[in-house]
């Protein structure tokens, strides 16, 4: 009974990318990218990057037009995780929101070039996934367009 309940909770908390399946990232990388992207675009009363499917966007595009970044994700995720564990003795996804933000600010402002490059790449791809067309796997339910009140404009015509 206990096990069943735990399995149920795990299912309920399953991230969007897990339901939709991964093509290029492994689960550990996906968890890291999700945590970074959701710090880059956090939820407020509008969805953040995680809920809008940014991980799925990145995962799918790495198998297509963004394939040239695949190796950078693989290598960068490992380096990033190592740097986070060295500082916090925990994975980035286990940090609270403030600690995540502080860690990213530090990398963005004065981190080693490799980590900074990795972070800025993920941040850019996060913006693409969040604000771009839903056909690519991100911007689920046109979340960003609803936030900006431009669904009518983006879907068809203003007039």
């Amino acid at each position, binding site marked *: 009974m206990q096990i069943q309940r735990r399995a149920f909770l795990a299912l309920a908390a399953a991230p969007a990318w897990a339901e939709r399946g991964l093509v290029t990232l492994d689960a550990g990388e996906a968890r890291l990218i999700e945590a970074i992207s959701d710090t880059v675009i956090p939820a407020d009363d509008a969805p953040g990057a995680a809920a809008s499917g940014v991980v799925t966007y990145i995962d799918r595009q790495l198998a297509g037009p963004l394939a040239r970044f695949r190796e950078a994700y693989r290598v960068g995720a490992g380096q990033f995780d190592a740097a986070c564990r060295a500082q916090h003795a925990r994975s980035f996804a286990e940090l609270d929101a403030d600690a995540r933000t502080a860690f990213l600010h530090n990398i963005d402002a004065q981190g080693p070039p490799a980590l900074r490059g990795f972070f800025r790449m993920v941040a*850019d791809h996060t913006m693409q996934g969040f604000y771009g067309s839903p056909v690519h796997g991100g911007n689920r339910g046109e979340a960003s367009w609803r936030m900006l009140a431009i669904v009518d404009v983006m879907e068809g015509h203003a007039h």
Partner: protein
Amino acid sequence: MKLAPVDVVVVGAGAAGGIVAEQLALAGLRVALLERGPRLAFPQTGHDELRSQRTTVLGNAFGPEDHGYVRLAETSPGQFRRVLPSQGAYNNIAACVGGGTMSYGAMAWRFLERDFRMKSVYGAPAGSTLDDWPISYSDLEPFYTKAEWEIGVSGKRGANPFEAARSKAYPMPALPYNTEAGVLDAAARRLGWHPFPIPMAINSIAYQGRPACIGCPHCVGFACEVNAKNSTAVTAIPRAIATGQCELRTGCQARRIVMADGARAASVEYFRDGALDEQPCRAVVVSCSATESPRLLFQSATRVHPRGLGNSSGWVGRNLQGHAYAGAYGLFEQELFDGLGPAARVACCDFSHGLPNGLKGGAMLANEFIRLPYLFSRSVVPPDVPLWGIKHKRYVRQYYKRSASVKAPVQEMPVFDCRVELAPELTDGWGMPTVKIGGRRHPFDRDVARFIAARCEEWLKEAGASRTWTSMPGAGVSGGQHQAGTCRMGNDPKTSVVDRFCRIHDLDNVWVVDGSVHVNNGGFNPSLTIQAIAYWASARMARDLRSRS
């Protein structure tokens, strides 16, 4: 395979090539119009910001794709890097029928009289090859008029007091102002400037059997879903085909122009579906853009022309230029966004010439096309707002509909070392050497850009912006979608590549007709000038070729 001869092979079905093909076909000549890209229907490209002509993060909707094509670009001084078409440093225009006109913003400017005699007006600054054109505005005026009527331009005659004389009104009234243009027009008048509606190659009313613009916001960077944007793909090229004299062949990547002797071209070789075809002809027109036209001439080198066809001067590939874009952004308390495209609707030419402090040239100022959400999130962010995090999200949310931007294509001083060269060390998907693009823009451009950016900012402040900031061009070589200059038109074969009718000085029957022939690129989007020159050159070419047959 060696094909049956035609009169003329036109390489490149873009802004200029489409017109040349049409005009020669109408003159009764048999034309083969070659295009490396496909003929695109609207659903193939759609309204996807991430795969548009402006934002190519997921590829170029209008080609070329990232496989098969590659270049070297000087991304920092002395450092050349391999770049793909979807990367800015590649300096891509497009690879499809219609070329850049399929997805352009469609501003349809005439250059001003002084743009054709810059050296006489200003003198060339040290380190620049600035010169006068071998043709004047009045030579070209009838052909500007022809372009406006044949391609279809909306505009308001007499609204721009700085415009040179015109022989005929626009064929269509100007597109009405959107909210932003209305606010900016009033502000410019308060400043004593002279704002007017931008002439656009977009139908404001039904024209030539195609409908009026429906005002969708996806304009620049996209094809038009109702064909109200006047590319050569919906104007000149269909008319060329309708003559029965012109065959459009897509998916044809030119390999070289084959010479019969030292002065005459005999045919064009091109790859199609993996095979090499040879099209014999009496004349060749190269209309591949200011980066690909010189490449084809380089690739066609022979023993007699070891540095490439038309290159006895050494000027092929030189003087690559685009525009030194300057601009400003402003944030407003009230909403300016009305979703009405094309958002660029108002301009002024008060600073196109006659700037103070010895500045040469200048730029037209216009409000910017719509900034779609991803582009906004990356590039319309004031210096003190972070580029990520909750503050960034709140900023985007608050100001997406409360921002305006004014941009200005600052006229560049041509520089000999801004150039396109063959790169034998790197081959493309056909095994042909690709090009490398290098050089640094003239430092003078930044002085003009600084002055112009300040005017853009002044305009937005007067319009009520609560916060403003400027944007400045970089120092690297310029080209991009306005690329020009690499096969200069001139009277002296030692310092130019083609004559005043676009025929290569060194050869009897090869012409270059595209932005490559521009001596300088004006302070304007160049497509209408490219097209006016295409009509001008075609008229002469048709006469020459008919008299020779």
